[in-house]
């Protein structure tokens, strides 16, 4: 039985490589895909291979799917869970492309898929696409995903991102905005309250301000940034 499984596995690896290669992936990525997928059991390999083939056929980027396999392995997820995760990501990438258009870059599709995972709908993605014009969408969509994941209602977050895009906000302003809101939320500030405050701060300082030049820096500490979990309230311990 074990030799049969081995033969099935070894047969699937060239199949995966064969399907991935025509996608014009770099040789390194092909080797990476084969290595990642070959570590799975034969049943999961076959299922994941089908997902990769389906994604390739539909013109979706394959590398994020292979990375999901690797992530699942490192996190010691069950093979079935890895297969489901790959399939779910494939669906999100497909939805993102359908909303953003067939000319979207892989980075834009990944950002769109992340936004969908956070709770953004396709209509909002189309709105951001329209507002962005010819600009790269990865940063606006990334910031949108961050806002929604932080707790800002999706349509409201979309309006905020569109507002910033109309003011020619660059990727750094957009991303600092999203991360600052999350920092505030972690300190106990309601997400929407923080988002409104941060948006006004950016508008007041002017887009392109030097204050928001580093991705992720908690530049305007609206709330507490290091601790803040409420404690106490009971008078004895067991």
């Amino acid at each position, binding site marked *: 039985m074990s030799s049969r499984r081995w033969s099935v596995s070894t047969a699937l690896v060239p199949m995966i490589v064969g399907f991935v290669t025509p996608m014009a992936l770099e040789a390194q990525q092909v080797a990476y895909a084969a290595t990642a997928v070959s570590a799975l059991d034969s049943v999961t390999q076959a299922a994941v291979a089908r997902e990769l083939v389906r994604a390739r056929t539909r013109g979706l980027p394959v590398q994020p799917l292979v990375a999901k396999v690797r992530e699942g392995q490192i996190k010691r997820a069950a093979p079935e869970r890895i297969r489901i995760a790959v399939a779910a990501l494939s669906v999100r990438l497909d939805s993102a492309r359908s909303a953003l258009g067939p000319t979207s870059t892989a980075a834009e599709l990944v950002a769109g898929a992340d936004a969908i995972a956070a709770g953004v709908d396709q209509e909002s993605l189309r709105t951001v696409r329209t507002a962005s014009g010819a600009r790269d969408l990865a940063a606006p969509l990334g910031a949108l995903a961050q806002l929604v994941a932080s707790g800002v209602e999706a349509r409201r977050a979309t309006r905020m991102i569109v507002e910033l895009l109309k003011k020619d906000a660059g990727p*750094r302003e957009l991303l600092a905005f999203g991360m600052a809101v999350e920092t505030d939320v972690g300190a106990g500030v309601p997400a929407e309250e923080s988002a409104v405050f941060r948006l006004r701060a950016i508008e007041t300082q002017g887009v392109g301000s030097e204050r928001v030049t580093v*991705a992720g820096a908690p530049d305007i500490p609206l709330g507490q940034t290091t601790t803040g979990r409420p*404690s106490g309230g009971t008078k004895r311990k067991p």
Partner: protein
Amino acid sequence: MRRAIASSIGGLLVLTGMGRPLGAQHHAALDVGVSVVRFLDESTTVAGPSLGLTSSADGRRLFGRVNLGGVGTIGAASGSATVVGGARAPVGGRWILEGSGELFGVAGTSVHSAVAATGAGRAIRLLGDGGIWARAAASMAHREAGAMPAQALEAGTWWSWSRVRVSALVLDQHAQGQLFTGPRRDLLVGTVPVHYQEGTVDARIESDAFSLDLAAGVRRDPDAASVYEPTVELTAAFWQSASRAWTISVSRQPPDWVRGADAAAWVSTGMRFYEPRPAMARAARIRPVVVVDSGDGPRRVRVLAPGAHTVELMADFTDWTPVTLTPGRDAFEGTIPLSPGTHRLVVRLDGGAWRPAANTPAVDDDLGGRVGLLVVP
């Protein structure tokens, strides 16, 4: 006599079943040991093995806790359970509103079962590394005398440093007390209203492998035999491994009229399992912030984690391989090839759990966990 001992044990469990302060996000501890308890009103002393289990989860919005306890002595055994659940929501201006409910029950081989339900609302105001709160609670207990309501108003404050946490509260409690008579205080006469005020100061002091919990206070009850009654509890824990500690506890508590515990003084010692060393628990409380420097080519990734000894990072841009960052002047850092776009990452402090950084919004990783979203311009 057996009934009295069992009742006393039930009272002990009421005392030991009470809650902890809000603490780590996930907490579990198993206590196994022996206790010697002296019930002050009856001058009765019991001794026996004891067992306690605490499990709690504290999320951003929801929190919950379960306490199970049991103790046995010759010819008697008893157990109790407490389930607490609640939700909190920020309401602006650094105010947080919290609602919670508690169910408490005790049962034993020869003791009447007793249950108590409590609903409470709390308003919390965050102030720097601490805050203040005001709380109102209403309880309904069912004991020998039937339904027994209670109400409480409470105000408190807390402050946290890296290795010290202090809280203080004042409480005004209305409740019903049961009156017993007879040589063994086992004949129920009736109930009387009880009204008292209480002030308590709690402190926790910890090193990497040691913790000391101290609670001291006083209760003012004009109708009690002693108008002012002291409240003292001291628990020391000495960790012998990452999740195993030897504990010793000394306590003196006045009666708990809400749940039905008699005044008692006790000494307990034993082993505590599954509670992480204080150093690890501190790492879990740190809120790491990820900063990516701008520029082309490999980027410098910095993680601000004050108080941490080691910081690891694992992300799609590390091929989900853990990377140990180098301690710098004010952050842990590493230079990692990082393309513009959205990335998913988690960090780990001092060998604790992998988790999203504080400034990277978390999304489902489709694998049963959460990852932080980092967007690089």
